[in-house]
């Protein structure tokens, strides 16, 4: 008996070889990507990486120089925003200050010749959906930032657009509100099933909200993948460094599967460089494991500094065998207590071969 074939994911938004130039400056270079129907996709990158430019090209607010954008099978590459199908939320909320919350939400519903009662019902439903059922008669300035952003969201989805675009929607909010709203937005998106593209420079936001993340740098895509893939298997040194903390140690490729750091040979599963090539070995602080001295592959180190960060300690260790290289290590509170770790103390660590990543040295 045959299994039913897994449903092939349906591409909702297709971007092909998209470029954007401002004069001589290339803001976006060779961007190609597919957004699956119903997924929550994040553009993540430092400021100036082109993520907002890409979002605005998708919306038709600032057209790309060359390249194609297809939405739901329709070529929308050169269409003005009004002829595309999307709702958008900005960092500034962009609520109309002189219109009540109700009127703001109803703004896009009004010219579709809907009966007034129906518009009112839809507005009430949306207010309920974003959790602000009693606020309809107030003006935007009378609401908090978080509330305003929820209204902006309600306004954007009022007309049931096929695509929801979020441009740094949480960046203007307080840290606590931001974390709270993350879950709400994600929950709402799941409930509605609307394909969503969000721009953010906040890696935590991207990791916690997105189904897939597009990491961008200097106008190009560095990596596309699920949050776990991006974190565990960064495709480049930039991604490794931008998301989470990462130790970077200059190294030289040895045989396949090993590198040397100042003479110390270490095993790495992904090292496949020509012997002698300059590389960078990278490992996350939490992947370095404290071990008993004398265990196989134990490396003796000395603790230089320890910083208490609440749920764990981040320590700096110096490794004499590797020519005095300093590494960041995260120790759980338990481990610190169990091993009685303190500044100045000697101990041993293990760098697991499957967690030690090797990247080509920059410029090499």
């Amino acid at each position, binding site marked *: 008996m045959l299994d039913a074939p897994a449903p092939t994911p349906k591409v909702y938004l297709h971007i092909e070889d998209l470029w954007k130039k401002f004069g001589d400056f290339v803001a976006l270079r060779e961007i190609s990507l597919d957004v699956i129907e119903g997924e929550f996709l994040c553009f993540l990158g430092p400021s100036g990486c082109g993520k907002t430019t890409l979002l605005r090209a998708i919306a038709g607010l600032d057209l790309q120089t060359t390249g194609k954008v297809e939405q739901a099978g329709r070529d929308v590459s050169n269409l003005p925003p009004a002829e595309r199908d999307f709702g*958008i939320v900005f960092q500034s909320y962009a609520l109309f200050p002189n219109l009540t919350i109700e009127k703001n939400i109803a703004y896009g519903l009004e010219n579709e010749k809907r009966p007034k009662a129906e518009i009112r019902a839809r507005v009430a439903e949306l207010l309920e959906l974003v959790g602000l059922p009693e606020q309809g008669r107030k003006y935007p300035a009378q609401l908090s930032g978080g509330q305003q952003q929820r209204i902006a969201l309600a306004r954007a989805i009022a007309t049931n657009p096929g695509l929801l675009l979020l441009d740094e929607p949480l960046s203007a909010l307080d840290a606590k509100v931001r974390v709270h709203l993350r879950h709400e937005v994600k929950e709402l998106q799941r409930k509605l099933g609307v394909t969503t593209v969000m721009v953010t420079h906040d890696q935590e936001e991207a990791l916690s909200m997105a189904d897939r993340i597009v990491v961008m740098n200097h106008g190009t895509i560095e990596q596309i993948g699920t949050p776990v893939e991006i974190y565990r298997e960064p495709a480049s040194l930039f991604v490794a460094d931008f998301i989470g903390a990462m130790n970077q140690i200059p190294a030289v490729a040895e045989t396949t599967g090993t590198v040397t750091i100042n003479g110390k040979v270490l095993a790495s599963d992904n090292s496949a460089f020509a012997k002698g090539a300059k590389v960078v070995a990278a490992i996350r602080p939490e992947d370095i494991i404290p071990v008993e001295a004398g265990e196989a592959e134990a490396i003796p180190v000395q603790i230089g500094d320890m910083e208490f960060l609440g749920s764990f300690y981040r320590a700096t260790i110096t490794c004499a065998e590797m020519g005095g290289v300093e590494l960041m290590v995260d120790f759980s509170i338990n481990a610190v207590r169990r091993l009685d770790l303190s500044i100045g103390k000697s101990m041993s660590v293990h760098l697991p071969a499957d967690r030690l990543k090797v990247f080509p040295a920059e410029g090499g």
Partner: protein
Amino acid sequence: MSAAEMTGPLVKPKLGRDDWMQRGFMLVIALYLVIALALPLYAMLSKAFSTYAFDLTAFEVQVSDESGGYNTPPVTLAELNADRQIWSKGDLIVGSDGRLGLTDLFPDFSFRSPVMYKFRGVTADDIYLVGSERQTGPEWQEFDSNTFRRLVIRPAKDVGLGNFTRYFSTPSLFQSIENSLLIAAISTVITVTLAFWFAYALARSCMRFKGVFRMIAMLPILVPSLLPGIALIYLFGNQGILKAFLMGNTIYGPIGIVIGSVFFTFPHAMIIISTALSISDARLYEAAVSLKASRWKTFWTVTIPGARYGLFSAAFVVFNLVITDFGLPKVIGGKFNVLAVDIYKQVIGQQNFEMGAVVSVVLLVPAVLAFAIDRQVQKKQVALLSARSVVYEPKPNKVFDRIFLGYSSLVAVFIVGIIAMCQFAALVKFWPYNLSLSLRNYNFDLMDGGGWGAYKNSITMAILTAVIGTVVVFLGAYMVEKTKGFEKGRAAFQALAMLPMAIPGMVLGLSYIFFFNNPSNPLNVIYGTMIILVVSTVTHFYTVSHLTAVTALKQMDTEFESVSASLKQPFFKLFWRVTVPVSMPAILNISIYLFVNAMTTVSAVVFLYSTDTALASVAVLNMDDAGDIAPAAAMGMMIFYTNAGARIIHALASRRILRRSEAWRRSG
């Protein structure tokens, strides 16, 4: 790294309905600015560089003897003139309407003589008139002496600097350059100094009656610039009550112009400097106090550097206002000529339009320079404004506050005194012999200048200017500020919108004569109507209105348009429901600004009014010119009361709107 190259075809934006409509609107308003500004200026410039001179080589004459036989060969007029030395080269340079009779070339000419003349132009372009009949061309024509007397040749047009050469070789004309610069420089120094200390008193002292002082300082804006001139005549003129104060000097001339200029430019300087002082950071003062710096040292190290851009800007604005002002020197300048009045004299007095255009170009130079420098300075000031600063709260200090109260009172007395003098003069029966009061000076219909009709015309003109101007300016600013794409078009529009500020009113008015009074211009029909007055006034005051609108629009979230478009709503819905209501305070400010200026302006409209469209401000000028100074003062006061009333209505309307929108204007 393999650098990939961009290979795909360029994406050409498909323009939506909104884009087409916006471009249409922008085109209409840009067209307005081109017709109301660019083309007239071009006409004026081309006039300034057109020279007209009689070309004596272009005509030939042959003279018979008394019996009618031609014994001598034909000669050109040039040869005759070279032979007989009748006209110098300068005699032959004239305006476009020049006519030259030829009998002077024949010293023994008599119209009764039987001598016959054969005459022709060398080419078909050489024009001469017999009586009023136009003749051209190389066909020989024969005239008897009596007809030859009525033969005149027309000048040939050429392009070049001839007019300027003539201007600079006429000392009575170019003396005005020095006069204008001198007056403007002195007035600038005095006004900026006075206004600085006044603004300083308002911002940094705890003196009483600040609100009253602020209001009084604004009063000069409500009257035409020639009103202080009239007041000064009553105060210091030949029959003035304070004449002794001048110690034998006359008020008619530089002294009067400077005092009057200080009066009418004071509010402009005060506003700019007040703004500059109000943005100074209080923390700098706290730092100065904590460092135990003296008041004097704090003043020079904190106050002045903080306000320096404001001071520069105020100086250039005042300089520009004074050098381009026409009304005041016209009334009180006496024999002291300045550029703006020269334009008027050349055009209205001597009908020499080319020379009027030349003086206009000369006046344009300092005006444009001052404007350009001011724009640069203002850009820097904006950078200061956007910095985060803490507002300075002055602390009471008895001596300090009293000194400033005294100073501000003196300034207030000066301003109120000038206006009160005018009002008194307007009510006095017969100055200075019969000081009993009456309203007979308000019988404008008995005087030249347009009567009460002129006053009504002014009101009509001011309302039309306010309404039409506000609509045009706000729409234009919206198109520049809030639309997408079409960058070059928008940049060109923005540049065009900044231009009017640099163009003196007299220059604009003269340009309109050249452009609109040209019979071959289809827009000629508006010449002499109310429309041309409104168009010229809107254009004259376009820049400040435009900047007010742009500033208001810049404060609005740039993403409103994006959101509205994503919700598939047409741009005009957003414009009506959000942009206009949110900008309402700025819109009201623009309309009152246009109204008040339309009531007081003289310079542009003085060339453009007709008997049906005489204006109150021009009537003040003309009544003063005719010696009816008391009625001129009375009409000036009518303008003042009208503007004051308009300001009060504006204030009430603004307050009402602000109260109604209180709920949403509270910044979140």
